[in-house]
């Protein structure tokens, strides 16, 4: 179990010493069950930090956002920023470092191991509690959550309300950190890795298309999946071009000639394109934090789509995203033994 008091003390000492600009962590949310991400720059406010099974967000995203903000900032504070990172978050940070998105010295990683339990899935929990509102969720040993409702506390086996990704998690212990809290316990193996994808792959191809067509038809193109993904940091996204300014003297020819890969209309074909482009851009980069799936307002199983190529990366190319910040990325490397038989 994580010693949250020690976590708070570590954050406090970092801020008091002034060795970091701020600490990105979790605090109790004012609305709803799930914890909220917080950027704490004041040593006294570190008491707000928590770590419990409701800390589902991937905080690596805020490192990317921080970098964006600092481009326009006038401060020349070169100190690193500290971030609380679970196993999956630390893998995301490793991928960002591997891609040289920011230098290693600009971030201080406070690793927290989710050990045997992982984090909670709010939808599963609501179903489990039959509509009763959970007030708090805490770790209860290494295999259960202690859940408080207005009827009092109860202990529920973690596997029943754990997020899907945590069931399949291969490394719950942070792979990259400057300071780690919690036990070095990585193998959870409640479900075989890529179980959901493999199950879907057994389906007939036509049925699979019918399934995905139904999912893509629902998409609102709100781009929440893109906004929440720490790997989606492109300045200009393929779906909305910001470099093409339509001015009064822009001719019809110029407008017609611009490359428009994907239309903005939420038609099935365009939505399919959008999600497939995202999936292919995440190949060998997706750390399976499943944030895209969690934030989707229409419950598109995006994790299923994105982990398909992760499975290929892991099983065919023996590549595990976020395991080594000095290794070449999946698509910038090759082996002589790569599959060749599919080519005529």
């Amino acid at each position, binding site marked *: 179990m994580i010693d949250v008091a020690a976590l708070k003390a570590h954050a406090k000492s970092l801020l008091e010493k002034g060795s970091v600009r701020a600490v990105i962590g979790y605090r109790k949310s004012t609305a709803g069950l799930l914890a909220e991400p917080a950027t704490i720059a004041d040593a006294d406010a570190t008491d707000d930090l928590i770590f419990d099974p409701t800390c589902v967000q991937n905080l690596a995203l805020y490192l990317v956002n921080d970098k964006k903000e600092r481009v326009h900032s006038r401060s020349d504070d070169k100190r690193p920023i500290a971030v609380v990172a679970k196993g999956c978050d630390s893998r995301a940070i490793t991928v960002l470092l591997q891609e040289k998105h920011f230098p290693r010295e600009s971030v201080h990683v406070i690793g927290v191991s989710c050990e045997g339990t992982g984090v909670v899935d709010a939808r599963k929990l609501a179903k489990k509690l039959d509509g009763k509102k959970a007030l708090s969720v805490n770790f209860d040993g290494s295999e259960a959550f202690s859940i408080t409702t207005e009827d009092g506390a109860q202990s529920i086996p973690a596997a029943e309300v754990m997020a899907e990704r945590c069931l399949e998690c291969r490394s719950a212990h942070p792979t990259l950190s400057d300071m780690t809290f919690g036990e070095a316990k990585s193998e959870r193996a409640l479900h075989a890795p890529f179980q959901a994808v493999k199950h879907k792959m057994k389906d007939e191809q036509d049925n699979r298309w019918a399934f995905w067509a139904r999912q893509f038809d629902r998409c609102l193109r709100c781009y929440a999946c893109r906004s929440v993904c720490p790997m989606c940091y492109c300045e200009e996204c*393929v779906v909305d071009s910001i470099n093409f300014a339509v001015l009064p003297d822009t001719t019809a020819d110029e407008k017609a000639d611009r490359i428009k890969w994907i239309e903005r209309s939420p038609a099935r*074909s365009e939505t399919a394109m959008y999600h497939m482009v995202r999936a*292919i851009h995440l190949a060998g980069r997706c750390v399976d934090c499943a944030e895209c799936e969690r934030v989707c307002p229409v419950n598109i199983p995006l994790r299923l789509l994105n982990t*398909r190529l992760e499975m290929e990366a892991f099983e065919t190319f023996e590549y595990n995203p976020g395991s080594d910040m000095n290794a070449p990325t999946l*698509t910038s490397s*090759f082996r002589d033994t790569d*599959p060749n038989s599919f*080519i*005529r």
Partner: protein
Amino acid sequence: MANAVETAKDETGFEPKIVAFLCKWCSSAGSDLAGVSRLQYPSNAVPITIMCSGSMSPMFVLSAFNKGADGVLVSGCHPGDCHYLKGNFFARRKIYLVQKLLQFVGLENDRFRMSWVSAAEGVKFAGVVDEFVKDIKKLGPQTRLKAKR
């Protein structure tokens, strides 16, 4: 020879549109060779020359399907023969991933294909296109990823 022309028309009158991305150094020259050798093969493939199969963006594939291609062919130099030494090795890995994704989403397997065609293999290029056209004719028009415009 005459057979190849006849097979291009079947009873439904469906003529597949195939977009062929050919690398400048091998496959483009291979398709040229097929032309100058006067080989008869279906004219369904629209060749687009790219500098290297390694420069092939997955976007090109998806976009071609989106704009109504019935099939997409990517063709490059044989492994070890790349003009840029290792471009086709990168391509192999990338195209493999794109193919797996397309299959997972439910596009028919035969619609996306990769081949190695060298500058001397005009006959092979004609064969690859011929086979591709035959396979796609069995599947009919591609409707799954095509934009309704």
